């Protein structure tokens, strides 16, 4: 019975925190974009109904109110059921993803109470695959919304976006598998505790995995440099061209939630989660003070990764669609597999002799991991055709033209 109350409180905290975070991260993104582009961002909307400009902190409230008060109409030419249901599917998938993200375990010290797991779904044995499964459901929101719009160009954008999403799920999974192999468990709490126990974060021992996961995360959230599907300069809006009002807000918030979830995962899998040497303890369960420090450290790391996502948006040009797909299948997937094989070889053959010989395991793995990153990067750069010629393949044009004339 207390489990139900505990779960309800956690759900309310997570959903409230996420909605607030999504709203304020839009403001942060606009300010960061402005800073990069050498201008100010929104800094006039402060406390509503007054003249106080509180560094633009009232801007998300104003945006939310605008979205809510927009006229809620359904165009006459769309497939009504799917048009209304698709944003909901994507939004639900984005929120349900956060049911498996752990924030630590706190022992409140009250007699008779077990340590509280700060996760919405504490006992989930398949933690990371659950997140993977729910992010595969988000593809439906994009595909159905674009098809329901009954608009050739929106559908085109949606198909591209869906193809990008399902192509980058595979490097995502393979990069996750490297971390899971090294840890020996699928549970996110166990992955974080393993990094905390040895003090060596997975970024040091598997940097190639981090690279693959980072690129795949960028693609899964549809952020630049992978946002051809909704590129504002080319296709008007991609799959959300025909949307407005609250439905559009659901799509945009779902995209932000995917970015936030990707950042959470990067920090959990590769940057040690709530662990920081010297500040937080090493053990899995903590007292209330250390637990608060852990949550603060975790959120600070997640914010740093989110800032990296935002700065990256304005640093690199957008990939063309065939470059994007080629990157997924011909570069990221082989690199991920190389990482997986290297971790497997390490665990099976090299770990026991080296540990028995007295070498510090973390240091050796770190050296080997960064060497592997360098070698793989050089090999990919040497083998990639972008080193020679980046133009699209025009021979196909001539071939199709001949085939069409021959018919």
């Amino acid at each position, binding site marked *: 019975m207390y489990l139900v109350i505990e779960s309800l409180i956690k759900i309310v905290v997570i959903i409230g925190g996420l909605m607030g975070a999504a709203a304020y991260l839009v403001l942060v993104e606009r300010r960061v974009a402005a800073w990069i582009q050498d201008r100010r961002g929104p800094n006039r909307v402060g406390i509503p109904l007054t003249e106080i400009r509180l560094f633009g902190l009232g801007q998300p409230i104003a945006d939310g109110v605008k979205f809510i008060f927009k*006229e809620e*109409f*359904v*165009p*006459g*030419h769309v497939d009504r059921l799917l048009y209304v249901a698709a944003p909901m599917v994507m939004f639900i998938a984005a929120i349900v993803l956060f049911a498996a993200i752990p924030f630590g375990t706190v022992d409140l010290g009250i007699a008779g109470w077990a340590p509280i797991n700060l996760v919405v779904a504490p006992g989930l044995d398949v933690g990371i695959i659950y997140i993977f499964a729910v992010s595969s459901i988000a593809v439906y929101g994009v595909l159905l919304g674009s098809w329901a719009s009954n608009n050739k160009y929106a559908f085109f954008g949606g198909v591209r976006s869906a193809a990008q999403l399902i192509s980058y799920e595979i490097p995502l999974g393979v990069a996750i598998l490297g971390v899971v192999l090294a840890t020996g468990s699928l549970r996110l709490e166990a992955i974080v505790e393993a990094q905390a126990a040895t003090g060596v974060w997975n970024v040091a021992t598997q940097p190639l995995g981090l690279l693959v996961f980072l690129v795949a995360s960028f693609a899964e959230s549809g952020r630049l440099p992978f946002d051809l599907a909704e590129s504002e300069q080319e296709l008007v809006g991609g799959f959300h061209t025909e949307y407005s009002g609250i439905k559009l807000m659901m799509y945009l918030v779902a995209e932000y939630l995917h970015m936030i979830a990707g950042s959470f995962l990067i920090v959990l899998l590769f940057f040690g989660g709530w662990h920081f040497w010297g500040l937080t303890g090493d053990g899995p369960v903590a007292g209330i003070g250390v637990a608060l420090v852990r949550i603060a450290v975790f959120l600070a790391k997640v914010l740093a990764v989110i800032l990296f996502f935002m700065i990256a948006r304005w640093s690199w040009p957008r990939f063309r669609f065939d470059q994007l797909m080629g990157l997924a299948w011909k570069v990221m997937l082989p690199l991920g597999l190389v990482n997986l094989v290297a971790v497997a070889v390490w665990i099976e053959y090299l770990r026991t002799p080296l540990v028995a010989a007295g070498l510090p395991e973390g240091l050796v793995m770190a050296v080997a991991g960064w060497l592997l990153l360098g070698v793989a990067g050089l090999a990919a750069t040497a083998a990639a055709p972008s080193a020679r010629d980046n133009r699209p393949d025009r021979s196909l044009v001539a071939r199709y033209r001949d085939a069409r004339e021959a018919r």
Partner: protein
Amino acid sequence: MENELALLNNYLVVGAMLFGIGVIGFVSRRNMIIIFLAAEMMLQGVSLSLVAWARYHNDFGGQMFVVFIITVAACEAALALALILMLFRASGSLDIALWQHLREANQPAYVDEEIPELEVKSPTWPRLVPAGRQPELDRSDTEHRPSV
């Protein structure tokens, strides 16, 4: 506890229903992809029964079988979609009745007797909120009549 046993029966019945609905769909639909969807549904029904039996006997063999079924279903989906794509290229439509010439020699051909009419809904135009000022109504004119 007969709760557990009742649950096993229930799972088997649900699995049987999924299988049966899959059979009905496979045999009676004409769209190639819906036929294949029904085949996948049959596999789902079987998987459900297998997991129920695995739990009942406390044996991982049933779950392992289901992992294998998922693998086979994925392969089957890839190959079936490739074949459907080739058939679509050759015939221009996803109708399986166009390939009737592959039937057995002593079966009569299937001919569409009557095709149901496609109901065309007249388009519903959006109703816009009237903008601007309301026209001045003569209240005395409207209030004396029993209906406007």
